[in-house]
């Protein structure tokens, strides 16, 4: 009886251990996955699940109230999204590993925002320092 339990235990544990080992080998997965780099983790607007499914609706809603009513609150603003999610190296949400482009390429959804909007994190530079311009 004890032997049977031992065998069962070893089998179960063994399978579990193999399962963990498989999950760890994510590099070997043949299915391509998008690169999701979150440099500043934390909840800003909503839960991750909600944002993954419905970010486009939130941006669309904000777009109209900004355009027509001039309400430029930060929480749902596209430039605020970009400021946080832009890649640290490229300073952009586009590019192969860019936060927006990586997922959109993976899901084959064309992203139109950045043909007009800036895809770069707003860097405070000397542009903002006033000086008499040369003519």
């Amino acid at each position, binding site marked *: 009886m004890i032997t049977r339990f031992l065998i069962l235990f070893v089998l179960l544990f063994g399978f579990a251990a193999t399962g963990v080992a498989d999950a760890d080998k994510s590099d070997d997965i043949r299915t391509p996955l998008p690169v999701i780099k979150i440099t500043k983790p934390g909840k800003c607007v909503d839960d991750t699940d909600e944002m993954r499914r419905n970010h486009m609706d939130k941006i669309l809603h904000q777009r109209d109230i900004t355009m*027509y009513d*001039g*309400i*430029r609150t930060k929480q749902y603003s596209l*430039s605020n999204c970009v400021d946080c999610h832009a890649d640290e190296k490229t300073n952009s949400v586009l590019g192969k590993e860019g936060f927006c482009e990586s997922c959109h390429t993976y899901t084959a959804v064309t992203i139109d925002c950045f043909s007009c*909007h800036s895809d770069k994190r707003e860097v405070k530079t000397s542009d903002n320092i006033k000086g008499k311009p040369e003519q």
Partner: protein
Amino acid sequence: MSISRRKFMQAGAAAVTGAAIAPGIHLVELAQARSPEEAASTAKRWGLLIDSEKCTAGCSFCVDACHTEHNITSNNRPETDAQWIRKVTAKDPDTGYTHYLPVMCQHCEKPPCVDVCPTGASFKRADGIVLVDKHICIGCRYCMMACPYKARSFIHEEITNQKSYVPRGKGTVESCTLCVHKIDRGDNNTACAEACTEFGNDAILFGDLSDLKTEIAKRRKTEPSRQLRSDLNLNTGVRYQGL
């Protein structure tokens, strides 16, 4: 202690009057600053007053400031380059007297560009600023033909390095936004007016036309000014002096 209804109302009315006329307290001014959550309203009408007598030849600080603010760059093709302000030279053919004036979107009360837009992209905001919603602009350029001031530009080529607060892109029409991003954040000035005051000839004044306490409204009331193409009855937000 009991107080009659009549006395209570009298005391209340006195308190309200006292707050309104007490020195240093201006209830109206307190209400003027728009909070970020508050929508633009018809309580304001933004506009410019431009003194063409002060505007001089060779000075282009307003145009340069506009280009810097909105990152408008040239492709070295003047025929198709975007142009939000033009410096116009007006010459009297008889006398030869020449003067100069910057011309941008005149932010009409009854804008012809809005009338002709087939998609509703061209619109007037509640506070009188005429804008293009580029999300729904199809680039048909009817508005460019309808505008009597040649204020609008079509973007023919890809644009990169836009400012985060000024989205601009190929295939859409654009024009002076009266620095709407600055107004929304409470700067109460435009890039052109700031540059003209600081570096130029102090020819451009920005302000709220509907508030009679502002300098622009006072000057419009006491000094002569006129609209360009006043025959069209568009009631422009931009007015000129010295024409």
